[in-house]
C-alpha cells in the first residue's frame, strides 16, 4: 500500500496545476470537481493507508521519488516518511481540508476568481502535506515555505483592497523572519551530521550529544524560532490576527488544518534535539504559557468574530507548546487534532454567519441568530463547548485536561505553568461564550440573507460530531484509561515521565478544571446575557477602558514592531533612495569637470595674458632656485 503514499501530496498539487492552466476556460462545476476532488481522493487514500497502517503497525513507510540533488555528500531526496506522527497530521490535513473545500464551493460561489481560489487552496493543502510527510528537513522546508506562499496568496485573495495586501505581506514576511532562524538551524544540523535526513539526525543526535549540550541548545532554539513564526506564538504572533483578511474558509484552513500547526509538528518531529536541551524545552513551555495568556486577554476584547477566533487559535496553539515544553508530546499532538476539528468548525460557522449577514463580522451587530440559523447555532455550540473545555461531553475537555494534568504530574512541569494554563482556561471559556451570547442570543440586529445549504451544513455537522466525540479516544486514568491515541503515537513520541504518587489527586484537578470552565461560562452569561449593565459600568471606568484598548490592540505589539523595525527600515531606505555611494562617484566627476573649466578658462587666446603668465612663472622659478 505504501506505493500510494506519493499520491497524497501529488493530487492537490496536480489539482492546483490544472486549475492554474485551465481554470479560466472550464466551467465552475469542473473547477469544483477538480478542486474538491483532488483533496477528497487524497483523503480517501489517507483512509486506506491509515487502516493498513493500523492493522499492520509498521514503524514507518518510506517512499523515495527521486534524489533532489547531490553535492559533495549533501544529498536530500524527494522522499516521504509516514509514521504515526505524520499519519495524524495527514489525517487532519486531508479530512478537515476536504470538508473546508466542500464548504468553499458554496461560500465562494459568487466570486469571480473561483478557479484561482481553489488553485491556491489545493496548493496550500499540498504544501502542508509535503511539510508533514518529508523525510528530510530540506523537503520539509520546501513545504514550510510553500505554506507561507499560499498564506500570502490567500490572505491577499481579494487583492483590490490594499489592506488585504498589507495583511498578506505581513504574514509572509513575519513568518519568514522565523524561517531565517530555522534555516540557520538547518545549516548547523548539516554541519554536524552531514545530512538533513530526519531519522538519521534523530538517532545520531542522541548518541553524539548528551543532555545539556550547547550546540543542541542553539539548534533547538533556532528551530523554535521557525516554529514560533509559523505557529503565531510570541514574539512573532502579530501576523495571525490580521490573517483573517482572507475569505473565511482560508482562515479555517490556516488555523485548523495547515500553517499554524506546522510549528507544533516541527517541534514534535525534532523532539530528540529538544529533549537534549532543557533550556530549549523550558523556552517552548514558557512561550506557550505567555502566549496563551496574552492572546486570551486580547480575545476578550475583540468585536470582530473572526478576530476572536484568531486570538483563540494563538492561545490554543500556546497550549500545544505548553504540552510540548514539558515533554508531553502526544498530549500536544492530541490537542492539535481536537483543536483542528473544533477550530475548523468554529471558523466555518462564523463564515456561515458572515455570509448570512452580508459580510458583517462585527459581533455588536449580530444577535438572536439561534432561531434563524439553528444548525449553525448547535454546531457552533459544540465547537464552543470544546474550545471552552466544557466538562465530560466535549472533546476539548479531554485534550486540555491532559495538558493541564501533565503540567503538574509531568517531570518537567511546574506549578506556574499549571496556573498559567488554568487561568488561560478560565479566560478561554469567558471569551468563547461571550461570542456565543453576543451572536446567537439577544435581539436580532441584522437581517439574515443567505441561508446555508447542504455544502455548508454537512461539513459543519461532521466537524460537530468530531468535536464532540473525538476526545473519547484518549481518556484519563480514572475514566477507564482509554489511551488509543498515545498508544498509536508511542513508537514515535516517547511517553511523559509522571511523578510517582500524584495520580490519586487527578480527580481533584479535573474537578478544578471543570469548575474553572463552568464559572467562565457563567461569567459570560452574566455579563453578556443576563445583566448587560455590568458591561456598561465597566465602560465607565477609565482603567478598564485603557486596559480594553491595550488588549484590543493585541498588547501593542504591532505598534512596538512598527516603531522598532518597520519605520526605521522604511525611513533609512527612503533616505538612501539615491544611493549615497553613487554621490561619491558623481563628486569625482564634478571635480574633474571643475578642474577642466578652471584650466580651460586660462586658455583665453589673448597674447598678453600668456606673456604675463610666462613672466610670473619665470620669476617664481628664479625665486625658488635662488632661495634653495
Amino acid at each position: 500500500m505504501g506505493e500510494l503514499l506519493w499520491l497524497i501530496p501529488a493530487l492537490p498539487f496536480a489539482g492546483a496545476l490544472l486549475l492554474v492552466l485551465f481554470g479560466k476556460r472550464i466551467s465552475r462545476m469542473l473547477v469544483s470537481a477538480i478542486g474538491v476532488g483532488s483533496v477528497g481522493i487524497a483523503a480517501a487514500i489517507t483512509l486506506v493507508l491509515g487502516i493498513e497502517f493500523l492493522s499492520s503497525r509498521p514503524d514507518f513507510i518510506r517512499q523515495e521519488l527521486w534524489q533532489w540533488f547531490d553535492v559533495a555528500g549533501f544529498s536530500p531526496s524527494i522522499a516521504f516518511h509516514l509514521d504515526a506522527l505524520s499519519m495524524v497530521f495527514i489525517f487532519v490535513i486531508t479530512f478537515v481540508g476536504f470538508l473546508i473545500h466542500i464548504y468553499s464551493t458554496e461560500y465562494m460561489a459568487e466570486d469571480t476568481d473561483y478557479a484561482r481560489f481553489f488553485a491556491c487552496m489545493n496548493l496550500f493543502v499540498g504544501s502542508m502535506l509535503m511539510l508533514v510527510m518529508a523525510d528530510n528537513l530540506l523537503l520539509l522546508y520546501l513545504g514550510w515555505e510553500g505554506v507561507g506562499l499560499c498564506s500570502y496568496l490567500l490572505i491577499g485573495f481579494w487583492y483590490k483592497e490594499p489592506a488585504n495586501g498589507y495583511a498578506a505581506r505581513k504574514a509572509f514576511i513575519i513568518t519568514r523572519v522565523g524561517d531565517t532562524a530555522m534555516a540557520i538551524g538547518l545549516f548547523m544540523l548539516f554541519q554536524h551530521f552531514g545530512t538533513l535526513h530526519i531519522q538519521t539526525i534523530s538517532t545520531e543526535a542522541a548518541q553524539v550529544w548528551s543532555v545539556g549540550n550547547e550546540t543542541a541548545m542553539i539548534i533547538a532554539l533556532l528551530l523554535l524560532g521557525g516554529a514560533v513564526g509559523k505557529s503565531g506564538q510570541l514574539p512573532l504572533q502579530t501576523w495571525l490576527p490580521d490573517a483573517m483578511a482572507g475569505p473565511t474558509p482560508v482562515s479555517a484552513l490556516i488555523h485548523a488544518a495547515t500553517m499554524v500547526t506546522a510549528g507544533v509538528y516541527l517541534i514534535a518531529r525534532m523532539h530528540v534535539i529538544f529533549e537534549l536541551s532543557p533550556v530549549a524545552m523550558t523556552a517552548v513551555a514558557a512561550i506557550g504559557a505567555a502566549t496563551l495568556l496574552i492572546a486570551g486577554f486580547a480575545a476578550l476584547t475583540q468585536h470582530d468574530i473572526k478576530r476572536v477566533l484568531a486570538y483563540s487559535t494563538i492561545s490554543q496553539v500556546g497550549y500545544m507548546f505548553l504540552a510540548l515544553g514539558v515533554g508531553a508530546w502526544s498530549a500536544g499532538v492530541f490537542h492539535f487534532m481536537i483543536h483542528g476539528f473544533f477550530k475548523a468548525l468554529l471558523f466555518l460557522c462564523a463564515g456561515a454567519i458572515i455570509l448570512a449577514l452580508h459580510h458583517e463580522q462585527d459581533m455588536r451587530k449580530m444577535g438572536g441568530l439561534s432561531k434563524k440559523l439553528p444548525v449553525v447555532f448547535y454546531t457552533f455550540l459544540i465547537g464552543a463547548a470544546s474550545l471552552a473545555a466544557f466538562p465530560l461531553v466535549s472533546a476539548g475537555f479531554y485534550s486540555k485536561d491532559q495538558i493541564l494534568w501533565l503540567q503538574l504530574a509531568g517531570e518537567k512541569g511546574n506549578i506556574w505553568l499549571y496556573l498559567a494554563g488554568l487561568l488561560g482556561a478560565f479566560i478561554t471559556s469567558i471569551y468563547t461564550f461571550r461570542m456565543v451570547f453576543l451572536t446567537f442570543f439577544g435581539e436580532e440586529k441584522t437581517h439574515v440573507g443567505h441561508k446555508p445549504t447542504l455544502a455548508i451544513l454537512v461539513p459543519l455537522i461532521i466537524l460537530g460530531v468530531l468535536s464532540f466525540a473525538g476526545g473519547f479516544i484518549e481518556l484519563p486514568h480514572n475514566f477507564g484509561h482509554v489511551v488509543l491515541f498515545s498508544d498509536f503515537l508511542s513508537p514515535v513520541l516517547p511517553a511523559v515521565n509522571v511523578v510517582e504518587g500524584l495520580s490519586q489527586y487527578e480527580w481533584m484537578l479535573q474537578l478544578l478544571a471543570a469548575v474553572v470552565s463552568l464559572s467562565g461560562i457563567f461569567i459570560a452569561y452574566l455579563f453578556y446575557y443576563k445583566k448587560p449593565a455590568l458591561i456598561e459600568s465597566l465602560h465607565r471606568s477609565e482603567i478598564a477602558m485603557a486596559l480594553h484598548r491595550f488588549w484590543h490592540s493585541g498588547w501593542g505589539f504591532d505598534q512596538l514592531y512598527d516603531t522598532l523595525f518597520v519605520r526605521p527600515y522604511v525611513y533609512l531606505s527612503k533616505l538612501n533612495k539615491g544611493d549615497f555611494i553613487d554621490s561619491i562617484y558623481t563628486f569625482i566627476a564634478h571635480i574633474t569637470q571643475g578642474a577642466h573649466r578652471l584650466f580651460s578658462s586660462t586658455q583665453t587666446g589673448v597674447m598678453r595674458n600668456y606673456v604675463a603668465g610666462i613672466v610670473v612663472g619665470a620669476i617664481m622659478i628664479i625665486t625658488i632656485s635662488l632661495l634653495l
Partner: protein
Amino acid sequence: MILVWLIAILMAGGVLAWISGKVNRSLPRWIALGSVLAVFGLTLYLWLSNPAPVLGSAWLVQYNMPWIPQWGISFSLALDGLSLLLLLLTFFLGLLSVLISWREIQTKVAFFHLNLLWVLAGIAGVFLTMDLFLFYFFWEVMLIPMYFLIGIWGHENRRYAAAKFFLFTQASGLLMLLAILGLYFIHGNQTGLYTFSYFELLNTTLAPEAARLLMFGFLAAFLVKLPIVPFHSWLPDAHSQAPTAGSVILAGLLLKTGAYGLLRFVLPLFPTATVEFAPWAMLLGVIGILYGAMLAFSQTDLKRLVAYTSVSHMGFVILGVFAFNEWALQGVVMQMITHGLSTGALFIIAGFLYERLHTRDIRQMGGFWSTAPKMGFICLVFVMASLGLPGLGNFIAEFLTLVGSWQANNWLTVFATIGIVLATIYSLRIMQKIFLEEHKLKQALPDLNAREMLIAIPMVVLILWLGFYPQPFLDTAQPSIREQLQAYTGSAPEREQVAEVAGPETKTIEVVLGEKKPSPNIHISKTLNQ
C-alpha cells in the same frame, strides 16, 4: 573546432545582419535569430552528447592555434562543465533577447543586431578563452557593443548611463590588464617561458606580496563587473537605461563574467592570497546583500529596483566563492544560472510593461492582475524565485551557497540569511505595486500575446526544473568546480612554502633567463603538435 564556430557564427552573423539591413528591414532579425539558434543548438548538442573529458581532467573540448607566437599569445579555447553551462545560459538568453527586441527596436535595426550578436560573441569568448591576452581582448569585445546598445537604443538618460558603464568597466579592466602583464613577466622570468597561456600560468609560483597585488588587479575587474558594493553604482544606471535586451544581457550575462572570472582565474591563480582576503571578500558580499536589498525596497523605477536586487543577489556569489568548498561553489554556479533567468525574466516583464505603458514608474501602475493575469502569474513566479522560494532554482542556489559559507564563517552567514527576509520585503512590493490593488489605468492593460508567452513559458519551465531536479546542471559543473578547488584541499600550504622559497631566488633566475629568449617559440610548437 566547434568552439571557434560558436564565436565565428555570432560574429559573422552580426556582420551579415548589419549588411542585410540595406536589403530589408526585418531581415536582420531573422539572421540574428538564425545565428543564435545555431549556436544554441550546437551548445545543446555538446551538452547532451556528454563528451568525455580530455586529458583526464575537467576539460571537455580544447582548441589551440598560435596567434602571435613571438609574445606567447595563442588563440586558445577550452570548454569545461562550467563554461558549458554558462554558454547554454548565454545563448538561451541571447535567443530571448532577439525575440524581445522584435517589436521594441524600431530604429537602426541592422546595427542593433550587429551589436547584440557581438556582445554575445564577446561573452562566449570570455567563457571559452584559455589565453589571458585573448581573454582581455574578449573582455573588451563585449564592452564596446554594450556601450552602443545602451547609448543608442536606451531610455531618456542613456548617454550618461553608457558613459558611466564604459568608464567603470574600462578603468577596472585596465587594472586587470596590468595584472595579466605582471603575471606574464613574472612567469617568464621564472621559467623562461613567456606565455599568456592559462594552463602554463597556473604553475607560476608567486611571492606573497606579488600574489596579493596581482590578485587585486584581477579582483578590480571582476568585482566591478559583478558588481560588489561600493563599486556597483554603474549598474542601476546601465540597467535602467538599457533597452530590454540590453538589461537582460547585462543582468543575465555580463555580471556572470565577473563571477566566472573569480572562479576561473582568481581562485586557482592566487590560492594563498585569496585565503587571506576571504573574510573581507565575504564581508563585502554580505554588505552587498543587505545594502542592495535595502535600496531595492525604496526604488520607484521598476528597472532600477530589479537592478538593485541584482546587487543583492550577486553578494551571494562572492560570499560563496570565498567560502572555498564544493557546496558554496555549486551554489554560486547555480546562482549564476538561476539569477540570469529570474532577473532576466523580471527585466523582460518590465519591458512588456514599458511597451504598453511607456513608463517604468511603479507608482503609475497597479491592479494589472484583473486584466493581465497571465503576466501577473509569470511575474509572481519570478518574484518568488527572487525571494528564494523552495521549488524554484534560486532556492537551491542560495541554500547551497549558505550551507557552504556557514562552514567558513558563521556570523557572516547569519547576516546573509537575514538578506532573505529583506528580499521578501522588496519582492512582495513588486507584486503589490504592479499587479494588486485597484486598477489605476482607464483602459485595460492587454495581457501577454503569443510571442510574449513563447518567451515567458520556457523561463518558467526552466526555473522549475532547476528547482526540482538540478542534478544534470550540478553534474556538469562538478568536475570543473573540483578542479578550481584543488589548490584549497590540502595542497595550499605546500604551495605557500614553495612560494616563500622561490621568492628570493627569482632575481638570479632572471639574470640567467635574460640570455635564453627564444623559449616561448619552443612551447608554441609543442602545443601545435598536440
